[in-house]
């Protein structure tokens, strides 16, 4: 699809990223050994169910994981910025918003109820030492107009005067207004109805292309990534279990979880008996098995080796899959790499 050749779009490489949260049972990993590359100018969608670690991954892109969480290991390299994980203090504060724009989950409710959107915009500008505040307001207005809103009116509004869909667009505006070229959107359309969602997804795609962005969209809804993402990464229990070009993954999923998930989606047409819920339930921090495959308890094709052996991470052309079954698949051996030494993590 449309990979923008815009030079401004930076690439992002997340390598062997692990993030833990301190709990009563010690530090438990919410994200474990994640390798993910965002190619310049593409939209990558990360999909996973509740608690799979999506928001934690998104926060790591900004080195914004808050205690009791911390990034235990790994790096997030952004072209022109370096490893975000090693940034701190002022450098980090300036990076957020200016270089990496973000809309956190529940952005619908994250605006300050006591200030107009315009006031909050000025606060944002000041905290980033923007000299030309009128220019910033102008930029904000044109972004809002661009997204089908009356920019001037929205800037004069308080949160409660805006609908959910309008607030989501305000969030996207705030993520873009400082001219960031890496943008992280965590659940940008959750709680919106279908027509509004379709509108917002179209806007995200258009703005992404116009501005030459590198975009990461986090969602629990496969339909959302199917609609806008060039590449799709599937998360389960803190691991990336499969990634690849969206259409290829959806058309021929290789990981048993992706297969099960697709089969579990209620569909508009076809035999309803073909759809099937996955047995069992998604793991929580405390129930993620420390070794072996995270998905094995719900996997219909698990083998003995899955109990203890970390699934090998196989790169098959543009696709990556972490499963013992894929290892035996003869036709798919272009490059085979085993994951980094994850066995050494002391969980």
């Amino acid at each position, binding site marked *: 699809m449309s990979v923008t050749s815009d030079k401004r779009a930076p690439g992002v490489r997340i390598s062997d990223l692990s993030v833990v949260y301190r709990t009563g049972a010690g530090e438990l990993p919410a994200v474990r050994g994640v390798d993910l590359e965002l190619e310049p100018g593409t939209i990558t969608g990360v999909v996973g169910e509740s608690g799979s670690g999506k928001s934690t991954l998104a926060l790591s892109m900004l080195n914004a994981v808050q205690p009791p969480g911390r990034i235990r290991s790994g790096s997030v390299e952004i072209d022109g910025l370096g490893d975000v994980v090693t940034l701190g203090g002022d450098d980090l504060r300036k990076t957020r918003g200016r270089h990496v724009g973000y809309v956190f989950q529940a952005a619908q409710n994250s605006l300050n109820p006591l200030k107009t959107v315009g006031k909050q915009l000025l606060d944002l500008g000041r905290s980033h030492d923007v000299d030309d505040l009128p220019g910033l307001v102008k930029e904000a207005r044109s972004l809002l107009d661009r997204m089908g809103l009356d920019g001037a009116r929205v800037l004069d509004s308080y949160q409660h005067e805006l609908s959910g869909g309008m607030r989501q667009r305000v969030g996207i505006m705030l993520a873009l207004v400082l001219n960031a070229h890496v943008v992280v959107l965590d659940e940008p359309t959750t709680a919106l109805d279908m*027509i509004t969602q379709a509108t917002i997804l179209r806007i995200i795609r258009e703005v992404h292309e116009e501005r030459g962005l590198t975009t990461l969209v986090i969602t629990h809804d496969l339909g959302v990534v199917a609609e806008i993402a060039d590449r799709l990464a599937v998360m389960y229990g803190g691991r990336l279990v499969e990634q690849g070009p969206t259409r290829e993954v959806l058309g021929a999923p290789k990981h048993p979880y992706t297969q099960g998930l697709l089969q579990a989606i*209620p569909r*508009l047409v076809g035999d309803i008996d073909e759809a099937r*819920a996955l047995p069992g339930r998604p793991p929580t921090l405390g129930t993620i098995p420390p070794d072996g495959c995270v998905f094995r308890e*719900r996997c219909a094709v698990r083998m003995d080796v899955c109990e203890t052996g970390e699934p090998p991470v196989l790169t098959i052309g543009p696709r990556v899959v972490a499963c013992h079954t894929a290892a035996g698949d003869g036709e798919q051996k272009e490059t085979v790499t085993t994951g980094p030494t994850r066995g050494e993590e002391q969980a």
Partner: protein
Amino acid sequence: MITGKGITKTFRQRGGMLGAREVPALRGVDFSIEKGGAVSFIGESGCGKTTLGRILAGLESYDSGEIVIDGVPMSSLRPKQRQPHFRRVQLIHQDPYSALNPARTIHQTLDAPLTLRAKQTGRSRSWIDERAEELLGLVGLDPGYVLPRYPHQLSGGMRQRVVIARALTVDPDMLVADEATSMIDVSLRLGILGLLKDLRDRLGVSVLFITHDVATARYIGLDGELYVIYRGQVVERGPVETVISDPVHPYTQSLLSAIPVLHGLEVPGAERVVPTEAIDAAQPDAGCLFAARCPFRTERCTSELPVLGHDGGTLQEHACFHPQRRSVVATPAVAS
């Protein structure tokens, strides 16, 4: 069986910069649900779905119209006398965060209504605990894990299932499931839908299913009916498969067109309809409510109000002057 005729409801908001404001939430809605039947409401945010659900559960008043529960018109009763009828309709709230008391364990949450139920039916203390475990098992939860916990210790999906279990404690005739599966993980969603279908088949519970996710409506039973609501009015209604596969109203077509396509697995419908964006709250009284956004409107549409019917010989009812079949729904990609 529960029927409603011409239900209207207007909210009056006080204050605000523009002074008092009237929000018409329901503009004369008719419906009918058989014992063990299934009716699904779909429509955009704010179209009145929850309001109608709350009215049926006796939690909200209505301005005019009549609700008849098993042959008893509610207008013939005093408000107090209506309560037992409405209590047979249990609402499963769309927000599982606020639906459960945060200061009570799940055990306490289920114990209270079950104790009452045990009294009513002359059952013993041990029945209460057995029933609590049985109900949690029914909704796919592990009683040992869930019972001692507080709501905040459970995931959204688990909480939603607790809410369903609690609704079942009173052996209701009808469940109003308001976005009951939207908080539930996709891998488990079909399980809850299957549960609702099961409750219909085995216990004869009727289900009023309110959802943004049209596809889920098929999974509580293909024998069900689908109502498409736009701004407080039913604009299309009929058998669930007919309305999904063969919609004739431009608004229904817009809703179905907006559903994300699983590219790679599906091919988008060839005639997807995108409504124009203007959603002006102050709709003129004359004409079709959807006219301002409808790509197919004609002059007639802005002067005359279309009413629900089978014009054009359609199987389903619709409220449109120009009903036309369009293929808007994605179809499975042919396997390569």
